[in-house]
């Protein structure tokens, strides 16, 4: 066999295998991003997909039971009840008012069953230019000059 044909064949085998690995069964590892609103309006269809939903953790909604943590995700007026039964401990950033991403599936009862939660502190670390970040105790200008 011509040496270039050999190279071409080897490269084709490698690339082909990788493409096969990348596409075969990728539906199992696909997660659909949905907003709380979209989930609320999604009745009956494509519920089997893995879903990632994001929103703010409603203040005071976190309830810790034996192995499950329940809380409410909020996006403007829409809300979604989430039950977390995953193995890993909840991230430290997960608390009232945090932005959270929940991975899981929507159950028939309308509760979202999550097996993975990611959270980041809300606007606390990012404020708009010129505004005091939420939570900062501001000192009026007159006192500050002292």
């Amino acid at each position, binding site marked *: 066999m011509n040496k270039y044909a050999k*190279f071409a064949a080897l490269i084709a085998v490698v690339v082909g295998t990788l493409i096969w690995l990348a596409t075969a069964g990728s539906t*199992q590892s696909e997660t*659909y991003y949905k907003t709380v609103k979209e989930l609320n309006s999604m009745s009956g269809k494509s519920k089997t997909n893995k879903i990632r939903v994001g929103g703010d953790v409603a203040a005071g909604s976190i309830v810790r039971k034996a192995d499950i943590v329940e809380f409410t995700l909020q996006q403007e007026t829409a809300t979604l009840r989430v039950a977390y039964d995953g193995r890993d*401990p909840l991230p*430290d950033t997960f608390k009232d008012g945090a932005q959270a991403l929940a991975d899981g599936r929507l159950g028939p009862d309308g509760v979202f069953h999550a097996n993975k939660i990611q959270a980041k*502190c809300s*606007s606390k*670390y990012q404020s708009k230019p010129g505004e005091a970040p939420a939570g900062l105790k501001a000192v009026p200008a007159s006192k500050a000059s002292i």
Partner: protein
Amino acid sequence: MENIGALALLLAFCVSLYAIVASAVGKIKNRPFLIVSGERAVYAVWVLVTTASGILVYSLLTGDFRFAYVAGHSNRDMDTIYKFTAWWGGQEGSLLFWSWILSTYAAVAVFTNRNKLRQIMPWVTAILSFVQLFFLLINNFVANPFQMLAVDKLVTSVADGLGLNPQLQYYAMAIHPPMLYLGYVGFAVPFAFAMGSLITRQPGDTWIHTTRRWSIVAWLFQSCGIMLGSAWAFDALGWGGYWMWDPVENASLLPWLAGTAFLHSVMMQEKKGMMKVWNMVLIATTFFLCIFGTFLTRSGIVSSVHAFAESSIGRYFVGFLAIGISATVYLILDRLPYLKSESPLESVVSRESSFLFNNLLLLASCFAVLWGTLFPVISEAISNEKISLDAPWFNRLMIPIGLGLLFLTGVGPLFAWRRTSIESLRRNFMLPGLLGCVLAAGLFIAGIHNFWALISLGLCMFVASTIVSEFFRGSLAIAQKQKMNFVRATFELTHRNTRRYGGYLVHMGIVLMFVGWTGQAFNKNTTAEVAMGKSFSVGAYDLKVTDVNSGDNPNYKWDSAVLEVSKHGKPFTTLEPERRYYKSAQQGLGHVALYNGLDEDLYVNFAASEGEGKVTLQGYVFPLVSWIWIGTLVLIFGTLVALVPSKVQRQYARTQIVGVAENKVAIEN
């Protein structure tokens, strides 16, 4: 103060612009004065950016909370070291830090080459200044670190700041960003030299020789940065994960993969004059992936735990990438005739071919990671559904690619250039191949039936023995010839060709890291709610709670548990996991207790205090994980060895193709 800082940044912006114009015009019109003034402008930019950075750091250290940045990322009670590291703890500061590193690198590159490479240097200055200009544009007009709080809102100061994100108040996290940035920015220099050499149609590989150390140092910083991030995740997140295929982790991995491909592929050009176009493409890819990585981290385009809030900054990066990539593609296409290969590929079983496949796999993995990371964006564009690909997808692709690369690590260096005879294959690979198979078979009999783990450990054995045998044979030859003892002969061998043997050490580091990664297949864990005096077990360990404490300091409150650990019933060690609650950030953070062993790590996380001496603890056993960090240290050591100049200066003979030279080679053979 703030005005001086802001003014310095603005001036730096103008001076950078001047540096570009002066260097380019000076070169085109052949005005040495202009060229020199362009180079001086680079130093001036360094002084200005350093001034601005100094002012920001000073206000962080002294707690000048009138600065929005200081108020958002520092507070009175943090350790001084974290007040300093808050420089790169947030968006504006870290972009200023980027600028500062770039200006430093540019000044060093210009200074060290002030009497050399007069053809290329003006363009190098111009290109580096162009990148600098872009970052200064961001510093000045998009994410200005000297933004004051509430100028028109009757508020000019706050009593105390929010403090640095508690998760960042951790040693590895304090130095992880600068390491990554030093790596990211470092690749700008080889890129500038490559482009300079293209613009001026330089024959030869001057740019590669000049920037070899730059590339290796940048690569080393990047490796350290990635592994520190990994170590931080392992130590700090509370469940022992060290790689999650998170978009921001991927952002740091992408340029590393391309850079690794580049470091290997330049050897083909240096020794054989091959792959010239490819090397240009690779260094440009690496550089733009560095910019892309910064973009990914800073724009929040793909949601991630790390990513900062969405901001308009992304648009600027997209613009910069578009301009930069188009210019590079145009240059390479236009200069193709100057980049002709000097020798052909000869055999599938040859050093050249192993480099080719090494590049193919590295680039394939780079593409796969990029695809997976951007899949939410791609799928949204195509089907209007935002879909993300999870860790299992990455693992399914990256494990085989990684093992393929590991295999090449073993065989590549032992293949001869041009072609390899069956005889030499047998001589070089018989024993290592046998050892690898024996280890895999032994582990299988011992009850380990995980397919990938067996393959991986078998390959690790194979590669490790090829490396050891290389050192052994070389040292033995020197020891016999020079009549010196074996250890000294090993030093001598390494010193004679630091590049080659340093490279082997780096490979050894990678092998050890693979051993550590493979251990993941055997992790164990338990979660238990235990009271004082009670115990729970994980793996071979029994953990008994002997004390529960709590305390308070200005920065955080804490709870901790004292655990007496016994292994197989024998007393083993004492661990004290802790949970902190940072006051100003109002955030809890676990502080895990860890027992590092060469065989396995015992890892205990304090999940929650339930009151009345009751605590929830999570115990994990992570087999072999220490080898990841040991491998990292070996990799660093190997890279440093490769940076030491060789004792014997080698002139790599090239296979000449043209006329007389070819006859000469033929006669000599």
